[in-house]
């Protein structure tokens, strides 16, 4: 089968496309092409040899679904795509809305529902966690700078100011909050999330839900090194039943359908785990999962094919990933092809 994957931007703020493809490439059962769908001609995944068989440029989500669908239809005529795996947050709403139309031209998807995507919204995640006894830092959503004045009443500085899709800043006072608010709103629009700051180590889980409440697999990791952008640059698989059970609970209660990442922080004083965020797609470190024995991207492909998929019951503890900066050298011809023709 031919599988298309988005998000080949393996940059210092990486998308998960490259590791998803890498996970699929290791599976002998998958014959057919892997097609990379890219937004920018400089997405590193285009230039990685033996990764995508073919790459195509697609329109940014902000340019409208009709354009996106038309472009995909065109690519589909050439490549006969069987399955698309979108991997970026900002794409998901669009693909969820397009899934029926895509099915109409023979392309499967395996996506969360609209409601599941919305669960990261403040009251929903907050209420959901409260109802299910999961600890979560306090959150407010703000849509104007004035509302930042509410912060001291709510929980006091420092706070974390987050964009609706990406990026976060720690703000120690109103001025810093205001400056972060401006940067984020300019870039990602509204609303902006203001979150109570919890100090401690970061833990993450990559998981896959089957859409009926079952967790197909889940691998927990502690970040060993975090970049100044807050991205995990290395991490190690760990055996921590606490956060795994929270992940199972989230998948069970939401009937999560698709891959996901759960971000936790362990309060350095109380040693309690707080659920910071649910990301509705695989993380950029998802390749650690197959390396530790759970090929979750491949399991997602099987779920999309409506094959029965057994649950993974364990994974190897102590597997480490270390991300690496590596300069790919190529000729300007490839850049030209992707720029001018939109494909390579």
């Amino acid at each position, binding site marked *: 089968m031919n599988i298309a994957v988005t998000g080949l931007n393996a940059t210092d703020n990486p998308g998960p496309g490259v590791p998803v493809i890498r996970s699929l490439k290791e599976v002998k059962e998958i014959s057919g092409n892997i097609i990379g769908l890219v937004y920018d001609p400089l997405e590193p995944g285009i230039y990685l040899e033996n990764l995508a068989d073919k790459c195509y440029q697609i329109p940014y989500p902000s340019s409208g679904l009709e354009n996106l669908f038309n472009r995909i239809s065109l690519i589909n005529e050439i490549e006969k795509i069987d399955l698309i795996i979108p991997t970026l947050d900002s794409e998901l709403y669009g693909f969820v809305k397009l899934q029926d139309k895509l099915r109409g031209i023979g392309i499967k998807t395996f996506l969360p529902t609209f409601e599941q995507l919305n669960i990261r919204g403040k009251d929903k995640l907050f209420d959901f966690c409260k109802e299910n006894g999961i600890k979560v830092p306090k959150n407010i959503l703000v849509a104007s700078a004035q509302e930042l004045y509410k912060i001291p009443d709510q929980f006091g500085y420092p706070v974390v100011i987050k964009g609706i899709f990406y990026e976060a800043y720690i703000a120690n006072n109103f001025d810093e909050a205001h400056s972060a608010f401006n940067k984020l709103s300019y870039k990602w629009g509204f609303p902006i999330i203001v979150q109570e700051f919890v100090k401690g180590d970061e833990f993450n889980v990559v998981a896959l839900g089957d859409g009926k409440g079952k967790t197909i697999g889940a691998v927990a990791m502690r970040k060993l090194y975090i970049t100044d952008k807050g991205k995990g640059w290395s991490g190690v698989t760990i055996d921590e039943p606490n956060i795994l059970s929270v992940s199972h609970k989230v998948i069970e209660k939401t009937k999560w359908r698709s891959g996901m990442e759960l971000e936790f922080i362990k309060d350095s004083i109380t040693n309690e785990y707080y659920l910071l965020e649910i990301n509705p797609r695989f993380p950029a470190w998802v390749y650690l999962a197959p390396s530790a024995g759970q090929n979750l991207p491949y399991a997602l492909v099987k779920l999309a094919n409506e094959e029965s998929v057994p649950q993974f019951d364990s994974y190897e503890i102590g597997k480490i990933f270390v991300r690496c900066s590596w300069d790919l050298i190529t000729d*300007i011809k490839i850049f030209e092809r992707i*720029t*001018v*023709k939109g494909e390579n």
Partner: protein
Amino acid sequence: MADITIPKNLAVSDSGFLFLTSTGETFTLNEIGHFIFKQFQQNDSFETVKNKIAQEYEVDLNSLEKDLDDFIAQLKAYNLIETK
């Protein structure tokens, strides 16, 4: 006699992809832009280029002149041509 010259450090491929070797900047030309550029490279004058386009394409001379002026202004702004 050419009234427009194109610097030597420029590479244009058949697809209309333009690479300024001195600065590393890259550009894309549409079909007509590419056509015009090739004529300038052959040292055709502004008038000659204009007439060639008018022969090949469905366009009136006034609009063409406006578009050419605008195009040349852009090329100049990007340091891709020199005019006398």
